[in-house]
């Protein structure tokens, strides 16, 4: 542990605590807790959406995957040039207007309104809670590694310390605290990534020299698909492209925007911030592969790519900033998911609205605490279940929510039966498929990934069942919701 890294780490946590304290004092209603009082500007909203959609994987796992597998690993992030605009065009305006017209606060609530179905709302809420617990548990584990790397606490104490901080501000300040800490964290992530990009592309004689070193040592690595089959890379693009339309931590941000007319700038801000923040992924992966190709010692594990680069080839202050950036990425993601799960537990699974606001606020805080503690207990067990749940989460959001929500909001012919069937197939199928692959009971053919299969299957089920039950479609869609869908 370096003194500089520890000092920057302490300053980072102090800044987060300061923002959270400020926001917590303003969190006096359930509206502030769940949707930041619908008072957020488009810059804050877009950068918070970026911060909450990138976990620590973007800084640690991503560069490691690129180092290990070659260019095929970037197909996870290539869709970022498209997804901000896609999300705004398909769902941004419609979800925001639904909030104006029906007072909708959560994604499951929007689904319930769309299909006039409490069951659809409950099933979507259940999917969010299940996936959130797993996702938060894996992020707590990652946070433990980062706190240990910065302060030398050991992984388990580091996990408890990091979790305590994020639980404190998520429980007290809800989404209002979350969205402003996200702004700070997102700016830190983007700034650190940009600096690392400058340092990494100058490393080893520059990008051209790095490219020639890699081509000489491992030409397949720098091929357009890396060292994996092309279909593997394309499956990543499919899942992380279309699947973004089902990521509630991003979609939920549309409800928070103060002025819906400013939504027009969301894709430009979100896409720019995302691309800048993802520069680290590409630059560190290439720089470390080139360094090893040029004679540097091979990495013990691919996930060591970022830390090895920072500790051996970058200024210590930059290493400190990036490690704080990793903590920022993890904490912003955790906060967003805790808030989503709390909203699902208090408003969607037991369908409630119009209750005493103080009661809803108190329930929201207790639900946040409960989900966070459950995730922490799972993370502390540190068995294979946690890793499985982490893998399960992203795929589940994509396969459970994309068909019913994204295509349901643009297709008046979608039916309740189609939505229920696709969500049920997604929940059961994702758990079985990912579980079987994780436990090595099933091996998918080269190039096929489980999340891609389940997204494909749930889309086909949704389209097929909706088409078979198309006679009911008009009767299941309220006229005002239809009007919103046509805007």
């Amino acid at each position, binding site marked *: 542990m370096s003194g500089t890294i520890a000092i920057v780490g302490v300053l980072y946590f102090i800044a987060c605590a300061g923002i959270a304290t400020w926001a917590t004092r303003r969190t006096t209603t359930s509206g502030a807790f769940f949707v930041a009082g619908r008072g957020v500007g488009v810059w804050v909203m877009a950068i918070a959406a970026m911060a909450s959609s990138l976990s620590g994987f973007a800084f640690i796992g991503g560069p490691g995957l690129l180092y290990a597998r070659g260019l095929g690993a970037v197909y996870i992030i290539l869709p970022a040039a498209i997804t901000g605009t896609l999300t705004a065009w398909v769902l941004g305006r419609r979800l925001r207007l639904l909030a104006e017209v029906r007072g909708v606060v959560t994604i499951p609530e929007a689904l319930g309104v769309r299909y006039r179905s409490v069951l659809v709302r409950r099933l979507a809420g259940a999917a969010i809670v299940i996936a959130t617990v797993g996702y938060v548990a894996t992020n707590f584990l990652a946070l433990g590694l980062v706190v240990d790397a910065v302060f030398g606490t050991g992984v388990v104490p580091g996990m408890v310390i990091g979790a305590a901080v994020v639980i404190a501000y998520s429980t007290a300040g809800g989404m209002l605290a979350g969205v402003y800490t996200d702004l700070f964290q997102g700016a830190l992530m983007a700034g650190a990534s940009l600096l690392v990009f400058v340092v990494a592309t100058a490393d080893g004689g520059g990008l051209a020299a790095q490219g020639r070193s890699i081509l000489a040592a491992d030409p397949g690595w720098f091929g357009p698909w890396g060292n994996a089959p092309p279909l593997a890379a394309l499956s990543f693009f499919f899942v992380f492209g279309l699947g973004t339309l089902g990521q509630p931590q991003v979609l939920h941000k549309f409800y928070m925007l103060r002025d819906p007319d400013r939504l027009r700038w969301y894709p430009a801000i979100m896409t720019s911030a995302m691309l800048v923040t993802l520069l680290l992924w590409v630059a560190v992966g290439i720089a470390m592969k080139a360094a090893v190709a040029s004679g540097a010692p091979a990495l013990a594990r691919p996930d060591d790519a970022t830390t090895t680069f920072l500790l051996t080839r970058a200024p210590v202050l930059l290493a400190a900033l990036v490690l704080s950036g990793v903590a920022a990425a993890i904490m912003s993601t955790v906060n967003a998911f805790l808030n989503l799960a709390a909203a699902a537990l208090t408003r969607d699974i037991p369908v409630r609205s119009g209750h005493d606001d103080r009661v809803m606020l108190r329930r929201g805080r207790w639900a946040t605490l409960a989900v966070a503690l459950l995730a922490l207990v799972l993370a502390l067990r540190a068995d294979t279940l946690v890793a499985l749940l982490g893998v399960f989460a992203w795929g589940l959001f994509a396969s459970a929510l994309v068909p019913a929500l994204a295509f349901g909001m643009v297709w008046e012919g979608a039916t309740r039966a189609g939505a229920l069937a696709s969500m049920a197939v997604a929940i059961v199928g994702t758990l079985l498929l990912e579980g079987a692959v994780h436990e090595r009971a099933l091996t998918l053919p080269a190039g096929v990934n489980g999340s891609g299969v389940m997204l494909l299957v749930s889309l086909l089920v949704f389209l097929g069942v909706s088409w078979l039950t198309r006679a009911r479609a008009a009767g299941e869609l*309220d006229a005002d919701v239809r009007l919103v869908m046509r805007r």
Partner: protein
Amino acid sequence: MTGRRVGWFLLVSGLASLAVGYLLAALGSSGTLAASCGSYAVAATLAGTFLLAAPGRTVSRGLALVAAVVFGVLLAGFALALGLPVESAEGPLLLGLPRRAAIVLLGVGLLPALVLPWAYARAAAADPLDAAAIRALVEECERLRREAPSS
């Protein structure tokens, strides 16, 4: 064929193409055919989804252009990646990157970002969501709910 119909065609044919690609991979077929199916699937499903997002029944010129850019850039990028010859360490580089890597990173991964957000901003400006427009929408929705038969 209307814009939305093109959207449906692209979406359904893209999903079918991906299913065929996965099936070919499962049957142990050569990578190129499965990759071609996957390339078309990715380009078609995303472009089709853009077209289906059109508000109302018609697709505006701006949205059609966006869908065309997405479809064209992705399909051309993947086709070049599949079709161009393998580079050597001594071969020419494009902005410091091997040619096919540059096409993937800069063409597929960056080019759409230079077009799509601005096309969205322009389309949204043509149909503003100012306070008066939202108030009118809310009032219209309230009227529709009042007139709807109770269920």
